[in-house]
């Protein structure tokens, strides 16, 4: 299944965060990895798209005090999501063979 760059970023971060993958945490990780802020609008609409593709599932998690008692939108990768992420990574590795910035 074709993935976009931002979709891959979300899948990767969610896979690394595991049980702690939710909106704000994913935003923080993406901002750290890319050096750019990630808007809530872009994140939530992409989560919807990934869920429609069957690559993730989302559910409302427990509220926490630091969130003003508001719930989180928890994210879990499906088996298809893990496979799609792995394929994207392999594709990037294959396409980057011999490229100058890939050998540095």
């Amino acid at each position, binding site marked *: 299944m074709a993935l976009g760059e931002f979709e891959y970023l979300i899948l990767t971060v969610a896979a690394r965060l595991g049980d702690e993958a939710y*909106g*704000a945490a994913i*935003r*923080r990780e993406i901002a750290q990895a890319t050096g750019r802020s990630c*808007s*809530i*609008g*872009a994140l*939530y*609409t992409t989560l919807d798209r990934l869920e429609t593709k069957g690559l993730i599932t989302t559910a*409302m998690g427990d*509220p*926490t*005090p*630091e*969130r*003003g*008692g*508001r*719930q*989180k*939108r928890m994210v879990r990768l499906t088996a298809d999501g893990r496979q799609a992420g792995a394929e994207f990574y392999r594709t990037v590795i294959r396409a980057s063979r011999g490229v100058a910035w890939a050998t540095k």
Partner: protein
Amino acid sequence: MGHEIASSVRGAGAAWRLAERLSALLDPRERDAVWGDVLECRASGPEALRDVAGLVVRRHAGAWLQWQPWAALLLGAIPLGIVLSFVSRWWADGSAIYLHLYEGRLNWAYLQHRAARGDFIEFVAGLLVDCAALAAWSWTCGVGLGTLSRRTRWIAAAICVVLVFSATAGTTTTARAFANQETFALPFYGTIYPLLLRVLFVVLPLAWGVRTSARIVAMRPSRVMWLAGVIVALTAFEARGIESSLTFGARILPPPGPDGITGSADDGRPLRLLPLAMMWPAVYLAICSVRRRKA
């Protein structure tokens, strides 16, 4: 501890208040999660506003990728808004002349004359029916917009309202001809009364219809069919009035033939079908109700 953080971050800035108002356009559960993310990230007011506004715009823009919002706009809000604009303005101008005539002259001595009494009752009854028809069409238009595309219902309603007030701009009616200038020279009859009629019998019923659309469609089909039947009958009864309004009153049609609606050989011409478009929201409402019941 969480609430102290929330209150210290939020403060009382205009950006926060605007972000809160905008977030009302999101689904409740998503709104909760978004505000939680905003608070956890300790965003400033402008950052919160940017985040919330961005999501609201994306959600509503995404809705327009479906066919339903376009159907609501092109088959509902735009054509019905235009017709409601013409009809409300025509009926306002027509009734303003009589209201001005009766103003200051209506008293018991006048009403004791049988013919005068009959004229007055006919005028009042006609005005009440016209206003009821306007309100009924506007209400069903609102319900239709709310049913066809829930997410974009308020945008479609807003476009309809803009058209109601602007579609007749730059035009006038035969009611405002030279002979009636004394009436329309008065600010109340020339400007305020038509605006009032549109607000009370078009805008408010339209908004109410949009707001209650989900509940109306969920009503028992027999009730909805009854409502739809009344509105269809009302539309047929008022069809010639609608036609007159669409020609700015210039083509006052001859009385209808024996059937009172579709015309006969002694009519100037038969009724056109366009005015009957005002009944489509009521018919659509009835169909939705029956389909929902069957499902």
